């Protein structure tokens, strides 16, 4: 059963939206009218250009309130969450010792030309993030943090020789789609090396969503505000599941 919702101003389904934009024109009453017509073309009704002014020669800034006729069915949207399994560090350590029975090897890096390491460090470093300890602090994790501007090749090579269980790739700069480009490159390289199925492949960054991650062929994606324990839990659970599955299939092969 579906549930269509519209933006909410002060009454259900009034569809109210706030917008602001710059137009490359000098301000005049005609410019306000242009902004109004533009919003109309975007499909909005009830368009109110509440602010319009010159910000520089040849440029005007506008604030608009309007109603959209569009709605979206929230029931049909199932953006799976990568943060499903909430566990504390202690629980995760216990889980790993019991279900995996050895240390989990994790390699993290800020790939491509991206030098924003604060995010990946927040996940990996002892210190952690928002009072939630980083993976280095976990008894059952062995973490390698490659820092910034790491080439996909190096990360893959390391994975190969060290038998890494999980790769954590970070992208913070998104200009000109550089994040998607770099994430894709890494995933494809792993495929090519036949390593893809051997690792839990995770990406993260302020603009990353779990949906985007699966589209890029990653096992999970973590966005703004991620806590280390959320990532650790996902890695542990996913790895445990795979091991169970593999052992089963192996068992079958034996018979």
């Amino acid at each position, binding site marked *: 059963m579906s549930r269509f919702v519209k933006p*909410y*101003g*002060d*009454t259900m389904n009034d569809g*109210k939206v*706030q917008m*602001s934009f710059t137009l490359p024109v000098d301000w005049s009453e005609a410019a306000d009218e242009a902004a109004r017509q533009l919003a109309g073309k975007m499909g909005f009704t009830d368009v*109110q*250009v*509440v*602010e*319009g*002014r010159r910000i520089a020669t040849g440029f005007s800034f506008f*604030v608009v*309130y309007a109603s959209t006729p569009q709605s979206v069915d929230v029931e049909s949207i199932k953006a799976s969450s990568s943060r499903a399994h909430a566990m504390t560090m202690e629980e995760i350590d216990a889980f790993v010792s019991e279900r995996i029975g050895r240390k989990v090897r994790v390699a993290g890096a800020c790939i491509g030309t991206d030098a924003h390491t604060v995010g990946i460090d927040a996940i990996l470093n002892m210190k952690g993030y928002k009072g939630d300890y980083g993976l280095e602090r976990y008894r059952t994790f062995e973490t390698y943090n490659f820092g910034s501007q790491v080439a996909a090749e190096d990360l893959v090579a390391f994975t190969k020789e060290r038998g890494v269980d999980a790769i954590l790739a970070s992208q913070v700069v998104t200009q000109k789609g550089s994040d998607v480009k770099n994430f894709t490159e890494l995933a494809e390289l792993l495929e090519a090396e036949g390593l893809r199925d051997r690792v839990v492949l995770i990406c993260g960054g302020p603009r990353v969503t779990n949906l985007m991650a699966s589209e890029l062929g990653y096992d999970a994606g973590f966005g703004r505000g991620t806590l280390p324990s959320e990532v650790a839990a996902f890695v542990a659970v996913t790895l445990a599941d795979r091991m169970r599955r593999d052992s089963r299939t192996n068992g079958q092969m034996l018979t």
Partner: protein
Amino acid sequence: MELRIDRAGVDRCRALAAAVVAPVEEFIAAHSTVSVERAVLRLLGVDGIGADEVPVPNLIVDSLPPSQRDRGAALAFGKAVAETGLDPAALGEAIAAGRFALADFSGVPDAAAHGALRPHVGRALAYIRGRRDERSARLARLPQLRPPLLYVIVASGNIYEDRAAAVAAAEAGAQIIAVIRSTGQSLLDFVPFGPTTEGFGGTYATQANFAIMRAALDEVSESLGRCVLLTNYASGLCMPEIATMAAMERLDMLLNDSMYGILFRDINMKRTFIDQHFSRMLNAYSGIIINTGEDNYLTTADAVDQAPAVLASQFINEEFAHRAGMPDGQIGLGDAYEIDPDLEDGFLYQVAQAQLTRQIFPNAPLKYMPPTKHMTGDIFKGHLIDALFNLTSVMTGQTIHLCGMLTEATHTPYLGDRALSLENARYIMNTARHFGEEIAVKPGGAIERRAGDVLSGCEELLNRVGGMGLMAAIDTALFADVKRSPDGGRGFDGVFARAGDYFNPFDEALRRELVPA
């Protein structure tokens, strides 16, 4: 942050305000209004509507010939109670149904009327007292967050939409919810009845709507573990009745100004003075905090010029409230952040004014109103003006903080606007929580000088008002550049002199209870 202010000047202003108010109080004591009489009936238990949706209290009071009315509705009504033995509510219905007319009972001796009402009066006052104790108990169990108390308005026109918006706002951090009245309700000479879903720029103030919102806020208060207070508007033609309803439905605050109706709604001044006195005695007794409307001076004229008038009005409102037996703790005097944002050092003047008010009225739960007049469609700049307003409020220790909306120039608040507004206040007041306590203003500097000018300007104004008397002063546009004549304006026909044997058991009881002889 402490200003050195001319204490003697402050005392002189208080003395002047007392002198200004004294003659008006004499006038008040000798008069009553139809709304006061209707309030008396409501207190006794009369409610409901009759033909053409006319409220029963109006039916009854309008049915009294002047000669009867001047002796107080309670007298005629009490006689009917004595004679019929019905309780007031039932009697009200019977009269509305046309089964009796008060005229039928004129023969009953006055003493019988007095006696017949005594228990009902006692019960009414006990009930209000009980509601008040309820409030105190809840506040003790679910304590408020520290001030400034974040206050937002809901104004959809539909009490049920308002309820949803109010609950959402409370969850987002609001500590006080005000339901804005439908446009022009203040000019109606009766109070609408029942739940309402059709309001314009606001939602009608009815007892049923009060109850609906009170219940919703009580519920969310429990889940939040802190009391969310409820506010509505009294000033207007029905001040005494709305004060009665608010007392019964346990509202926590009411807008109640001794001159707002006169100046900004052209309601007759005598009517207003009499009504505000009776309604304030009720507010005082029911523990309701009043909010005065000095902010209105600033939305209609230049805020820098009007500062002394605002202070003068605060002194007058304070004096009127004291005369109604109201303690400082219930007198929410108003001020607003309305100086032109593009004025150099305007922020300093705002701080000066806010701190001056804080120090002159140390025990009053000051009500600080947000920038409105200079808000424009530039919501981004508007949000910044609100931020400095929030900063000024926390710096100067204001008590009741009406959160500004970035969309002030555009529409009555959307649900999302309120969330952003509360986020603004919470952020600023937290990151600068103790800033005010950690700084001092330069002695003799611009801030102190401004405060001094405002105070002396106020004394000067009060002097002129005192010289000619308050009514004449209003008649000569000394306040807000608005001229109102003593016998002009709406509702004057509802004002009358009390007869020698005027009977108003609540007026008597409340004066006895509250007003220092």
